[in-house]
């Protein structure tokens, strides 16, 4: 009797312990994939262009884009990176702060980027675009010359078009070598003009100068020649301002290239 009762209670107890199996919380798999870098987290943040979809993982920010809806963004992200994107409530506080600072034009804030799977050439182009100060623009050819590939102007344009993190890497500050505003991956030319205007530039004025054939401007007091939006060029008073069509024309006139914006031969032609 006693033995029977004991074995029954043990069975009962073991059965009860078996029922202590639980179900993992809904977010466990997603958060684990995010921590291991196998999936990205994403959230939306406001911007001058509307709601931006920002994806990130422990390596850094992996995508910044506009999208019709979350489903559209998730599908594109998977296609482009091979990783799923899981929506979370908000960006980590520091990242949200850093991105808002960067969009506001502060280049000094550090934002880690996840550019795995991207080519070396593309990375060079994007890193170079990061050097262009807020409120200034450079032609595609300038980037090509700066990274030691002066003939790769078209490839620079393509690389900028593939920039996965626009606004953080300011590809909008790179314009066509003829001075016109050019294409923009984040919603087209109109958005590019909006951002440049928000950064204090006048896109109409830029294009008017381009139509007039002005690629560089020099000062007849310093004999230094700059890109028109370089901070040194903007200090030149109208009376001393000398427009040029190319660096060759400027050097022939006895001008030397600015050490800050570094116009290169052939670039602005």
């Amino acid at each position, binding site marked *: 009797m006693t033995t029977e009762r004991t074995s029954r209670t043990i069975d009962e107890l073991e059965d009860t312990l078996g029922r202590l199996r639980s179900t993992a919380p809904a977010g*466990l798999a997603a958060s684990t994939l995010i921590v291991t870098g196998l999936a990205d987290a994403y959230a939306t943040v406001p911007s001058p262009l509307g709601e931006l979809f920002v994806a990130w993982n422990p390596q850094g920010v992996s995508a910044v884009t506009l999208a019709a809806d979350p489903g559209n963004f998730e599908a594109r992200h998977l296609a482009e990176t091979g990783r799923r994107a899981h929506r979370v409530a908000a960006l980590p506080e520091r990242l949200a702060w850093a991105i808002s600072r960067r969009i506001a034009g502060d280049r000094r804030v550090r934002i880690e980027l996840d550019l795995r799977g991207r080519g070396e050439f593309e990375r060079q182009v994007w890193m170079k675009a990061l050097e262009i100060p807020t409120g200034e623009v450079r032609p595609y050819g300038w980037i090509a010359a700066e990274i030691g590939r002066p003939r790769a102007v078209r490839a620079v344009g393509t690389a900028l078009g593939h920039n996965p993190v626009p606004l953080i890497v300011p590809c909008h500050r790179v314009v066509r070598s003829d001075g016109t505003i050019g294409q923009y991956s984040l919603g087209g030319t109109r958005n590019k003009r909006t951002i440049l205007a928000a950064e204090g530039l006048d896109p109409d004025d830029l294009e008017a100068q381009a139509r007039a054939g002005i690629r560089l401007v020099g000062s007849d007091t310093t004999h230094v020649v700059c890109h028109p939006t370089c901070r040194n060029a903007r200090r030149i008073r109208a009376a001393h301002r000398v427009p040029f069509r190319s660096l060759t024309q400027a050097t022939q006139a006895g001008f030397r290239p600015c050490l800050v914006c570094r116009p290169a031969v052939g670039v602005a032609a």
Partner: protein
Amino acid sequence: MDDTELALALARDVDTGFASLLAAHQDRIYSITLRILANHADAEEAAQDTFVRAYRALLGYSAARIRDLALRPWLATIAVNACRNRRRRPSDRRPALSLGPLVEAGFDPRDPGLSVEALGERSGDIETWARRLAAVPRGQRTAIVLRHVDGLTYPEIAAALGLPEGTVKAQVHRGLRRLREHLEPEGARRREELSA
């Protein structure tokens, strides 16, 4: 996908196989960490920690080694270590204020429609037993969780805990005896009620 297929998938490619490993083992690993740590927030972190450690380990293993892994006990070993490391952290000494027991009982914090009555009905005696198990000393509790919540064999548990099989059996036995004390009076009471 069973564990053999999972191990093969992981041996082919850790990154693609890992999501399947997570899907297949997250409930049991979470059950282990939950019943050892007896706190939902800690258990979730320890479960995540388990899989992150597993992933990093897998990246360093050869394909042959991954193919030969017994995934169930291997993950359980990592889970036990993850729990042990969490307990060492001083922040774990603070009393836990957690929605855990409610969530476990079927309460969804985001669902305002669930009544207190429904909650009581759903929770049954699971929560009572979870508390009783949590009161069992740590060594015995860990052994019981692996044996009776997760269902590992004694040799697997012995390997996971790095203890002789006899020691593990003794721990499970002692722990069960302690838990049975709760059961006996209940059984006795029920029998009394029946005979009355």
